[in-house]
């Protein structure tokens, strides 16, 4: 798997630096060829606050051909843009605000209006020609798409015509010497020259963002939804870093940040297959804070280090195809096999929601320990979930609750011993443990296990410290408290117009709004139900959608008309029986006489 890693916002940009750290010799005065990152990944930093990009010298401006690049998401919108004026006058949103408002609902609302306001869509299509969303379209076509394999072939030519004329392509490197010296980079590679270009592009996208910050939290869902609207089956994953406890450096309160995180997670996890991401990897910054005592550089390094087994390209001989991103995507979406009777009983189609994937990571020197110590280091001792930070779990969870495990190892292990060691702790049958082996480096061996949906199945787990239910219950409770106590802060932003305030009020406080839905989420967590987030919510759309019936990680649609008719007839028949009975007639008589 060779993802285009997209860091969104401040945290995303800092973590992305680790992914793009140069593996090559640093000659300082010159660079032959492209920057070489681990796993040959490519990356781009998306940011909304221009001032944040000025205070650093690692990323360069994409429009100037620098690599690694940053892209200001609203750079495609002119100061005197008609679209910008319309949005400001009607809704009170400024498309070019520096950093926007660091609230998830601000950005959520701002992106929704492009989907739902026909007049705005028309203005946007007329002004921007290539897209009906100047922000998402610009970020995708100019920033991300050129790094992917989608930029090759016929669709690439269409995209290039639609793309920005300022774009110089992904290889716009200063001082690059082509052909002869470039080929030095490929001496010894077995791929032919004709395959070179396509092998350097990315086969998937991995978004990095904090959950509970500003730009990353607010952007991650709109940009992933837009990408999915253009590319239905291209693998897209997101790594969300849940914010830590307490206030942050910008003095944003804990409740506000958790509310942003919850809104972001909610939106990401309620987009059905083919409409959003393929999986949300969750990490908890609180665990990393405790492990590294607040050293953010070390924390960023740990996040990157944990994903190295996923990104390493050195597969076992004959296993190159295992790294195929679409194949990994398919495995992540895999559901239980059904027999004919189950399908007949159900009678209607199942819809799928993206899973939560919790990474568990451990590394050890090659000479110490074996596969069992590696697995135990990743999961921790059985039944010992708290305190956090003592084992390899990067988000609180009970590993035995997972319904699938994707195991990426680097070292010399056989498939059987890996499956046996993992199964011994999490008690999954071996057909639900998918193993991806990479070659070791003779110094250290490590293992990354992605646990799919490690929650649910038993009530009361929200009271057990160290479980996923416990952590989500905590942040949802704090979010509800914040919503309840901060109506003025939420609705009283100075530039909001009345239409925006009304819609936000309805979204947060209205019937079947966010408060109601989050309370339902708490109930599901307490009852051990899956999934937790089920019903998509919109600020400017119609929020009154009938809640779907849920099962496991699947969502059932509304009942078929025939089923509804049958149910009605059954209820009528039962009522008739009840009303005919003597006991019922006696009770009715008593009521009338009284």
């Amino acid at each position, binding site marked *: 798997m060779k993802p285009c890693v997209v860091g969104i916002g401040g945290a995303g940009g800092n973590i992305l630096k680790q992914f793009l750290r140069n593996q*090559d010799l640093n000659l300082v005065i010159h660079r032959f060829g492209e920057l070489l990152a681990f796993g040959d990944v490519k990356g781009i930093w998306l940011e909304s606050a221009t001032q944040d990009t000025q205070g650093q010298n690692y990323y360069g401006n994409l429009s100037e051909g620098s690599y690694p690049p940053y892209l200001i998401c609203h750079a495609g919108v002119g100061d005197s843009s008609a679209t910008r004026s319309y949005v400001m006058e009607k809704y009170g949103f400024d498309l070019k605000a520096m950093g926007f408002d660091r609230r998830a609902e601000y950005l959520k609302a701002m992106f929704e209006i492009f989907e739902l306001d026909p007049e705005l869509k028309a203005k946007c299509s007329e002004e921007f020609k290539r897209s009906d969303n100047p922000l998402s379209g610009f970020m995708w076509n100019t920033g991300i798409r050129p790094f992917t394999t989608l930029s090759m072939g016929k669709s690439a030519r269409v995209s290039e015509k639609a793309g920005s004329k300022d774009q110089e392509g992904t290889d716009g490197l200063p001082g690059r010497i082509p052909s002869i010296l470039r080929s030095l980079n490929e001496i010894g590679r077995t791929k032919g020259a004709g395959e070179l270009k396509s092998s350097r592009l990315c086969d998937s996208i991995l978004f990095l963002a904090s959950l509970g910050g500003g730009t990353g939290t607010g952007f991650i869902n709109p940009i992933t939804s837009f990408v999915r609207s253009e590319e239905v089956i291209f693998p897209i994953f997101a790594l969300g870093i849940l914010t830590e406890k307490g206030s942050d450096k910008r003095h944003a309160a804990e409740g506000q940040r958790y509310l942003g995180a919850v809104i972001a997670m909610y939106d990401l996890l309620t987009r059905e297959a083919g409409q959003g991401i393929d999986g949300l990897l969750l990490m908890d910054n609180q665990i990393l804070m405790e492990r590294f005592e607040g050293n953010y550089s070390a924390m960023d390094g740990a996040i990157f280090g944990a994903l190295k087994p996923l990104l390493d390209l050195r597969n076992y001989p004959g296993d190159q195809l295992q790294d195929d991103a679409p194949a990994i995507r398919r495995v992540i979406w895999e559901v239980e096999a059904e027999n004919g009777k189950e399908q007949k009983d159900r009678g209607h189609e199942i819809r799928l929601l993206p899973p939560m994937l919790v990474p568990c990571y451990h590394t050890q020197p090659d000479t110490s320990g074996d596969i069992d110590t590696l697995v135990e280091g990743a999961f921790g001792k059985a039944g010992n979930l708290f305190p956090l930070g003592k084992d390899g779990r990067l988000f609180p969870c009970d590993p035995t609750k997972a319904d699938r495990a994707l195991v990426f190892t680097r070292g010399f292990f056989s498939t059987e011993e890996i499956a046996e060691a993992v199964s011994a702790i999490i008690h999954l049958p071996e057909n639900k443990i998918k193993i991806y082996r990479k070659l070791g480096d003779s110094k250290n061996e490590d293992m990354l296990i992605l646990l799919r949906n490690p929650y649910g199945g038993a009530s009361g787990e929200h009271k057990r410290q160290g479980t996923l239910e416990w952590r989500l219950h905590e942040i949802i409770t704090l979010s509800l408290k914040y919503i309840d106590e901060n109506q003025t802060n939420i609705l009283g932003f100075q530039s909001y117009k009345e239409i925006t305030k009304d819609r936000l009020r309805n979204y947060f406080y209205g019937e079947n709004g966010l408060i109601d839905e989050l309370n339902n989420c708490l109930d599901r967590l307490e009852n051990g139900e899956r999934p937790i987030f089920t019903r998509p919510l919109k600020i400017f759309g119609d929020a009154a959608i009938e809640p779907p019936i849920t099962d496991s990680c699947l969502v059932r649609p509304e009942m078929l008309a025939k089923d509804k008719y049958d149910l009605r007839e059954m209820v009528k028949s039962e009522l008739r029986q009840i009303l005919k009975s003597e006991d019922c007639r006696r009770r009715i008589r008593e009521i009338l006489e009284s």
Partner: protein
Amino acid sequence: MSETVPGLYLLAVMMGMVILSLIFHTHYFVRVTDHVKKTSDRNFQRKDLMAALHIPQGSNFNTMMLFSWILFLVAFAFLYFMTPDILGTWDYFRVPQVASDSFGLVYFGAAVILIPGILVALFVPQCYGYYQISAQLKQVTLLTPVFLLASIACSVYLGTIYPEFNPFYWYVGYVALLISLALMLTPIAKGYIEEMRT
């Protein structure tokens, strides 16, 4: 052969290092192949394993190593074949048309680059593609051309003072050459030692 410097014996030291590295490199593959065979689910061919083991080291590093090895050959030729004082066999001054030319040393260096240099360019950089070489070690290898240029400078000085001979400059040139060879072989040796610990 010169009686002032034991050139042949010191040459044997360098050849010994190169041969030892070749042995390490070969044995490294034997050990890795053994590990993979014991844990693999299927049979594989050597070329598949070589492809799987390959790690891109980057254009800068490959360029630097290629340049260093070619420069090493030039420095070696200058140190041993500039004057007859070391090996007493063929030397630069036996071709008076070249030796008397203002650019004679350049022609000498170019001849070394063109013939054995091509062989180096074809094979040597590939060797490094099978080892995990840390960023710090890569930065240390930046010193290699510095030592090589120092060795070449000593050899050029010896060539200009010929028929005079100053053993001190020859030894300095040799030590610089030896250090540069050690730097270039360190990634292979380090990789092998780490593999032997498993």
